[in-house]
């Protein structure tokens, strides 16, 4: 039945079917591992408890805050990360691999560690947090700005890396041709380079959004209040137990997945396949 793929691009010969079957069984285990907990999360819900939780102001505020912060984070990541990704894709310089490695560091830093480190910089007495509050009145501790900072730290690599790969796929000769046609460098970026790399950029922003909305560790240390949805769920779990927390969790899952699918659709619905052909 489903164990027989419609097409198989590997070698087809006697004995291959065992390889296909083994590979598919491994995949089946993985899929079950991913889907079972999520399905279970919904299976135990009743419409009543879901609606009841959804009506709670705390939960609604937390969900709203999470979505807002994650969208803002993706926008900030785009603003800074996409130009930087273009630079990394086009420039050759000594230490480029070191710079690329620095971009990847947040992927390996435990999120609570990231939170503590961020608190030391963006906290009340931090090197940025202090002056920002004194001179700009901008506070990170316990504010939306702080949530965005925490989310940005852990999710920025997705935007930079995806956009960089997308830019690398755009043939520089297309940009050259555009210039000779009479377009200035900014116009070439806007009309040629970014549209051609759009799918990769959008994928990166979507991943940054998804990573941000699911962030707990860094956020909870830098900004406990106001509570984002994951923090709210943790709090409910501690205070009221599994049942109430799982209803809020199911709600967050529905919203994150819906937005993730929406953004992916936007990303893939526009723009052609990257690469002008070499």
């Amino acid at each position: 039945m489903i164990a027989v793929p419609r097409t198989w691009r590997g070698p087809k010969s006697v004995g291959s079917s065992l390889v296909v079957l083994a590979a598919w069984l491994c995949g089946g285990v993985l899929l079950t591992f991913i889907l079972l907990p999520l399905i279970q999360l919904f299976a135990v819900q009743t419409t009543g408890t879901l609606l009841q939780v959804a009506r709670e102001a705390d939960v609604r505020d937390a969900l709203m805050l999470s979505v807002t912060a994650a969208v803002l984070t993706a926008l900030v990541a785009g603003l800074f990360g996409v130009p930087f990704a273009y630079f990394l894709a086009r420039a050759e310089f000594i230490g480029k691999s070191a710079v690329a490695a620095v971009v990847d560091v947040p992927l390996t830093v435990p999120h609570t560690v990231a939170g503590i480190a961020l608190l030391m910089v963006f906290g009340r007495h931090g090197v940025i947090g202090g002056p920002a509050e004194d001179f700009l009145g901008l506070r990170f501790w316990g504010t939306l700005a702080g949530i965005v900072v925490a989310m940005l730290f852990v999710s920025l690599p997705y935007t930079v890396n995806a956009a960089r790969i997308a830019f690398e796929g755009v043939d520089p000769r297309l940009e050259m041709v555009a210039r000779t046609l009479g377009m200035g460098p900014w116009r070439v970026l806007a009309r040629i380079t970014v549209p051609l790399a759009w799918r990769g950029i959008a994928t990166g922003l979507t991943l940054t959004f998804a990573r941000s909305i699911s962030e707990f560790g860094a956020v909870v240390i830098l900004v406990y209040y106001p509570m984002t949805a994951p923090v709210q769920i943790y709090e409910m779990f501690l205070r009221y137990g599994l049942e109430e927390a799982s209803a809020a969790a199911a709600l967050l899952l529905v919203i994150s997945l819906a937005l993730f699918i929406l953004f992916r659709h936007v990303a893939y619905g526009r723009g052609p396949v990257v690469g002008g052909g070499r």
Partner: protein
Amino acid sequence: MTALAVAGLSLRLGAFALDDVSFTLPANDVMVVLGSNGAGKSVLLETIAGFHRPARGRIAINERDVTTLPAEKRRVGFVVQNFGLFPHLTVAQNVALGARAQRRARAGSPPVDIAALLRRFGIADLADASPLVLSPGEKQRAALARAEASHPDLFLLDEPFAALDAPARSQLRVELARFLRELRLPALFVTHDYVDVAALGDHLALMHAGRIIQCGAVDDVFRRPVSRTAADILGFENRLVGRVVSHDRRLAQVAVEGKFLRIATESAVPAAGEVIVAIRAENVRLLRPDAAPTNAADNRLIGAVVALEPLGALTKVALDCGFRLIACLMSRDVAALGLVSGAAVAADIAAPDAHLVVP
């Protein structure tokens, strides 16, 4: 009027370099820049287009010094390998982009009739097509139409055929030559394939290691390679090292491995020292060893077949006549002459087909 004047152009760019490159291209003419990969041909073109800042030298297009101008102000039509159409736009949008950008850059220039331009290049029915579905020939037309829409003063073509198979190359070459003639625009065409030269160029520049080693009318350069490297780039299969024994105004006698070759002299011949005799494989005429001398019998060599390399309609034959000689003939003649490995064969070379290269 000169379409392009390059003077003393030098720059270094990683593994590539330009070293004191100078040449001029008269209006409406086409110059082919021929050189092996890594010679710096593309760097030269990109520098003229405005993508590298030369360390020294000047570039003038239509007698307008563009050395310090950005690429968008140089008015060149740039055609790259695979033609560089923007894949996210339709053919008409590609062409319109060239026209719009140029109108913005040059206030007051008349609007371009895109539909008419597409008709002129025979791609009107492809206006709404994606470049991704075009054949190579259609891509070339669209790329030329787009460049033409931006009213360039000069076309720069960077190996546009490099990724194509031989039949497509030859078809596109003929078509490109026709369009360039019709557009009456000067063009610089860069390639590593000497077959492109005769169909396209009025002038030929040979490039090696960042330098123009020879430049002139196509026929002159083909007839008189100035060095072994030049003969190499021009695709002379036979480059024989010899020594001038005697010469008069018309003929030189050159000793190659104990054999004497008579060579038509077209320029001064050195009295002594090593020379190179360059002969195209197709100018070596193979005959039965006992055949009567032909009118190409200024030189008759007797040798043995060493190797045969069938190339479809043509076959390359390597001979040993005291030195190694490559001949090229129709494959159907191979059997008629009984050419098998070890067979004896006569090779006739006309004096004007052998070129004296003084290294």
